[in-house]
């Protein structure tokens, strides 16, 4: 009937109501620093409970609620330290465990009353089993041969015959569409951060890409050649800022071989 008799049950010390009393391992507790590493890998309270049950070889159909709850709360306490946001889902489960525990402590009124006869753990067992099925299904899904990892699409050039339509057609779009798409991003971004780009930086970025195009890792370019004096003071400043930004980003190198000599600019390989 109970298909998987756990090792712990085989070593039972005594029998109560015909069922072995499980001698719970005393080493359930894991040092907190070791915990932190894999706490982040739990996908939620069900995942954590499953771990507690499976790693200690407990029978999912006869969960020692008191002990599991105690263990679970230790993890939750630790989780609260690490990730407060996650704790909400975990606390709901903690409440559920506490409720089951309390209901199990109550004496049973009747042995044969249909409704009341339900083990308070039944709902938890059902959820754990359902979750476990999909957890396994996700693992199976991950193992299926998939594009970009196990197999790759072939890309063939169209035949070389001159044919107008041979050129792959691209959907037309207009700038307004791009802009409205970006507006959506902005609205989302504004909610979370303040680092919207100001107009002035645009020209610096523009200049940065121009300079990156001009310089190559192969040959040096005199620093002064990057400046266009007809652009006046703002142009020179923008160019200088662009050069400094590129240098900071380590996209270009600035070299000066002699003191007061010409500064040369070079791309980074």
């Amino acid at each position, binding site marked *: 009937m109970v298909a998987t008799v756990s090792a712990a049950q085989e070593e039972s010390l005594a029998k109560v109501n015909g069922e072995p009393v499980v001698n719970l391992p005393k080493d359930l507790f894991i040092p907190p620093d070791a915990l932190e590493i894999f706490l982040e890998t739990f996908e939620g309270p069900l995942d954590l409970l499953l771990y507690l049950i499976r790693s200690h070889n407990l029978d999912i159909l006869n969960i020692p609620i008191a002990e599991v709850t105690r263990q679970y709360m230790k993890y939750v306490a630790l989780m609260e330290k690490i990730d407060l946001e996650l704790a909400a889902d975990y606390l709901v489960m903690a409440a559920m465990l506490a409720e089951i525990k309390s209901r199990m402590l109550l004496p049973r009124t009747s042995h044969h009353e249909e409704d009341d006869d339900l*083990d308070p753990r039944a709902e938890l*067992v059902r959820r754990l089993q359902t979750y476990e099925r999909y957890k396994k299904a996700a693992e199976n899904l991950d193992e299926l041969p998939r594009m970009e990892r196990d197999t790759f699409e072939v890309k063939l050039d169209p035949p070389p015959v001159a044919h107008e339509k041979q050129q792959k057609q691209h959907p037309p779009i207009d700038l307004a569409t791009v802009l409205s798409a970006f507006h959506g991003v902005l609205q989302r971004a504004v909610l979370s951060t303040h680092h919207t780009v100001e107009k002035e930086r645009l020209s610096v970025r523009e200049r940065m890409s121009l300079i990156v195009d001009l310089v190559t890792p192969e040959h040096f370019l005199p620093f002064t050649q990057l400046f266009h004096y007809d652009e006046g003071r703002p142009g020179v400043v923008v160019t200088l800022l662009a050069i400094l930004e590129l240098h900071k980003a380590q996209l270009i190198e600035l070299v000066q071989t002699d003191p007061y000599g010409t500064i040369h600019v070079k791309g980074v390989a």
Partner: protein
Amino acid sequence: MPTPSTASLKNILEAALLAAGQPLSIKQLRRLFSDEWQPSEVEIGETITLLQQEYQGRGIELKTLASGFRFQACSETAPWISRLWDERPPRYSRALLETLAIVAYQQPITRAEIEDVRGVAVSSSMIKTLMEREWIRVTGHREVPGKPALYATTHDFLDYFNLQSVDELPPLMAARDVDAITDELKLNSYAENSR
């Protein structure tokens, strides 16, 4: 349009499937032909079967997928082919795979129902990622207050995971019947209780 003799049906289908860069259905392939020479769907299907046989044991294979037929590199060659690109293949988080698996097996399903199975909130950005990837789509709305969207998987999802239909997904782990569980629990009684 030239006459069929200049190129055999097999060669045209071979070149088309290799050049398309996406799965092509028999209907799509048929549209490549004009009225002058319009092979039947049966002819096209038979020729594809022939091509599939001819490519057996080679470096590429012609797979039958949800949205049609696609040539792809054989998985045996993947360790070498993947070196063509600097980028490593994308990896998907457990959260994403679990959500995707629940949608795949339980479709159509609402976000709240997915959350119920997983026991944690499903983030909007995850749903968005799956929608953008065109692996899931909204197929309708559950007739309950708030009319939540119902999600289902797409052909793109099946194509990506090399499946013809959701029936080909690995079977779910057998869950013990809920009634059976309840019975067992009854028999186990409150052993816990009496400790």
